[in-house]
């Protein structure tokens, strides 16, 4: 399978079972520094479980997770917490703090980890909100927002500290096409301008092929295909082809048009 030149994260032989249900069965995956890697795969195939291992929320039954060469699995909580400052994660179901309003949610990482003044923090929050077209909702609580708005607030919270690695678990699910395009541009922009390493989970094949540098397909607990979008399109694996054929937009056409829909 495809080898990346400069991996920032390496997953080696990850096994994870919940009770008798084996979800990951020897996952090997390298994440290239400063690039966008998208993980695709069927619903329930274990994509969310996989990325939760990367950020240390779940411990594998076996295998290693190397971040810049250090094994995250055996780290003590405090050291893990140090490393996590380099990470941002957007949860599939947003996971906003529901006892806080939008402004407090986005300000939370800044208040915890920076010495910025209240004024600076508020102006950063405002800037992030306007970037995501969410002006004027500072005082609303998460329960007063639509699903798509929640997702964007969670996105703002995940990126507000400018982490080196951002994990997006379905960043565009539930967003309208224009907003999807904007979020795609944001992910792409962060990678191009700030050299952010991005790990994206997506069911949206159009945007996957638009933004990804690498695509990995998770199937039955293993990464069965990995490489640049072209390599995925021309994969000879039946499961990959079946997955692509079922997606609504024919991927070849998108790549051929240079990524513009």
């Amino acid at each position, binding site marked *: 399978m495809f080898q990346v030149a400069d991996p920032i994260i390496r997953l080696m032989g990850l096994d994870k079972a919940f009770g008798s249900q084996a979800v990951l069965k020897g996952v090997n995956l390298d994440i290239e520094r400063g690039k966008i890697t998208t993980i695709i795969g069927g619903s329930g195939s274990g994509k969310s479980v996989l990325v*939760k291992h990367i*950020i*240390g*929320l779940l411990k594998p039954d076996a295998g290693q997770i190397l971040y810049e060469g250090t094994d995250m699995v055996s780290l003590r*909580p405090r050291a893990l*917490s*140090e490393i*996590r*400052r380099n*990470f*941002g*994660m957007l*949860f599939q*179901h947003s*996971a*906003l*703090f*529901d*006892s806080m309003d939008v402004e407090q949610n986005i300000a*939370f*990482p800044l208040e*915890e*980890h920076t010495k910025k003044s209240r004024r600076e923090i508020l102006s950063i929050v405002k800037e992030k909100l306007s970037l995501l077209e969410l002006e004027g909702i500072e005082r609303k609580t998460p329960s007063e927002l639509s699903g798509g708005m929640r997702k964007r607030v*969670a996105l703002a*919270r995940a990126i507000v500290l400018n982490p080196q690695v951002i994990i997006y678990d379905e960043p565009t699910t539930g967003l309208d096409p224009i907003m999807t395009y904007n979020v795609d541009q944001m992910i792409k922009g962060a990678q191009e301008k700030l050299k952010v390493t991005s790990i994206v989970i997506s069911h949206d094949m159009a945007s996957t092929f638009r933004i990804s540098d690498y695509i990995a397909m998770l199937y039955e607990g293993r990464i069965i295909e990995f490489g640049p979008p072209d390599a995925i399109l021309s994969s000879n694996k039946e499961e990959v082809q079946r997955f692509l054929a079922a997606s609504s937009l024919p991927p070849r056409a998108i790549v051929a048009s240079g990524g513009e829909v």
Partner: protein
Amino acid sequence: MLRAVINFLDELGRIVLMFFQVLYWSFRPPFRFGLFMRSMEFVGVGSLFIIILTGSFTGAVMALQGIYAFGILEMEAMVGGSVALALARELSPVLAALMVTGRVGSSMATEIGTMRVTEQIDAMETLAVNPIQYLIVPRVWATTIMLPALCVIFTFVGMVGCYLVAVVWFQVDYGLFMAYIKSFMGSEDIINGVIKASVFGTGLSVIGCYKGYTADGGARGVGAATTTAVVLASVMIFVLDYLLTAMMF
């Protein structure tokens, strides 16, 4: 049967472990004074009304029972002293702790449990904030400090209830009523009651937070966590009450 015992001991061990984790994270910066004050307000001010209500009725009913009992001996005036003693040593810490379990312990389990099943605790961890330090430490300290205060208030309003029944209603002599209180009660009775209350406060809040923190399985899981938290904390109060009483008196 054996399985159940082992599971119970396992759970108990985990709760004790949680207690030590709370201690560990209590003395490490950052100190979350704002969250602590908010918890104090929730536990203390929030429980004030229910404590005053239950306290005054407890004192009043104890007085009523006492009047009949002491009436047989024509010693009605002793009722104040005996009620004061019972309240300070036993009833105030236990009943106040039970009321706070119902109100505060359950809400801690629900709140933290909801955060757990909606991945808010995971999110907090990914933001490199320790959830035990952020969520649990302030709640445990607030309950540990506030429950003794509520216990003293419980005793005080209980005595007001007792006074109303005995002196105002049953015309017990006020001077004798007070004299017996003073001769029966020592400061160590109050102090011991207060110590009990703070131990109960630590216990019930650690249990409530622990059950929430380890909840899983959606709304039903949170409900189950809340129920077991209340049951476990109530049992803990009675067991510890026995042990502490055996040690102190």
